[in-house]
C-alpha cells in the first residue's frame, strides 16, 4: 500500500494489490492521504486446500484492465 502510494505520487501507473481483508483499510488509508483514486485490486483468501492459480489469473486480468484504463479504480 505504502509503496503503491509513493509510486502514484511519482506519476507512474500503479495498482495496489491487497488481500480482501485489507481492502477497506487500504482504501481508507489512500483516502486520508489524499489519494482516493489510487487503484486498489483485492483478491480473496485462498480456500483451504484450493488452488491459487484461478485467483491469480483473475487478479492479473483485473490489474491489467485497470492499468489499461486508469479511470477504472477497481474492477474487483
Amino acid at each position, binding site marked *: *500500500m505504502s509503496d503503491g502510494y509513493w509510486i502514484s505520487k511519482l506519476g507512474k501507473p500503479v495498482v495496489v494489490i491487497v488481500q480482501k481483508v*485489507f481492502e477497506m*483499510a487500504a482504501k481508507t*488509508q489512500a483516502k486520508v*492521504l489524499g489519494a482516493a483514486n489510487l487503484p486498489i485490486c483485492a483478491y480473496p483468501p485462498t480456500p483451504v486446500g484450493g488452488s491459487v492459480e484461478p485467483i491469480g489469473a483473475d487478479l492479473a486480468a483485473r490489474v491489467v484492465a485497470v492499468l489499461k484504463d486508469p479511470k477504472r479504480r477497481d474492477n474487483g
Partner: protein
Amino acid sequence: MAERSNDLVVIGAGVAGLTAATLAAKHGLTTFCAEEQMFGGLVLNIGELDPAPAARPAQGAELAAGLMEEAAAAGVTYSGEAVHRVSPDGPMFRVETAGEVVVARTVVIASGARPKLLGVPGEQEFEHRGVAHCADCDAAFYAGQDVVVAGGGNSALQEALVLIRQCKTVFIVHRGSSLTAHPRFVDAISRHPNIQLVTRATVREIRGAAGVESVLVQGEEGAVREIGCTGVFPYIGLQPNTSFLPAGMACDEHGFLRTNDRLEASLAGTYAIGAVRSGFGGSLDDAFVDGERVIDALQSRHQGVDA
C-alpha cells in the same frame, strides 16, 4: 524543503497513535500524524481480535480503518512518509520526513515496535519464501503442510491457532519450560492434537533450497533436532522503532523508551505511548488507554501553563 507548523506531531499511526491524534484534534490542537507503513500498526495483521475491543470491529483491519476515519474526521493531517529525524530546536521540535519539516512544540512518539528477528542463518534468505510474519495473510500458502512457530507468548499461540486451521502440523518452539501466553490460548492449543510443543528449545537455523524445508532446533542440553517444515513464523517479541530519535533519550535495556507516570519521555516536550514505551501492557486496550492518557497529560500541562 516545505515547512509547516503544528501544535502536535504524532509519530506512528497504530492504535495508540491514532487514538491520541484523534483526541488531540478534537481538543483543538492542530495535529500532524506520520506513518510510513500501513496505518493501524500491528493490529492490522490480526484477523480476529481476542478479546475484541468494546464497541469496535473485531477484525484488526476493520478496526484500523475505523480509527483512520475518526482521526481524519477530527481534522488530523496525515503523511505517509517516514520520519527520518526529530531534533530539538529551542522550545520546539523539528520533525523531518523526506518531503517536509514539521515544527511543533510537542511530539508524541507512537512509532511502535516491529517483530524481533530470530537472528539465525537462513532467516533473511528465506524471508517471503517460507519465513512469514502474518498467519492470517499467509496460512493458505501452507495448507496441508507442516510449519514452525517460534515463541511462547500470546502472539505465537494466537498465530498457531490460525495456522492449524489449514496446516497439517504446527510445531511451537519455545525456549522456556512453560508457555507465557494467556491461559485461554494455552488451553486452546492443548486441544489440538496437531499442535506439537517443543519447549526448552530455540531455532538455530532455517534450511532449504527454493523455499524452507526444515529448521534446526537446539534443546537446552545442546541436542540438535531437525524439524521438517515449509513455513517458519517467528513471534519472539518486539523491538522498538526509535532510530529517528535524538541520541541519549532514556531507554530500558531492550531499547524501549522510558517515561514517567504522565508518559513524558526523557526529552522535555516528548511523550511515548504504545509499544515503543517501556512498560507498555501490550494489549489492545492498553494501546487505547495510552492514547487517551497522553492527551490527558497534555491538557494538564497546558492548563498548568495557562494558570
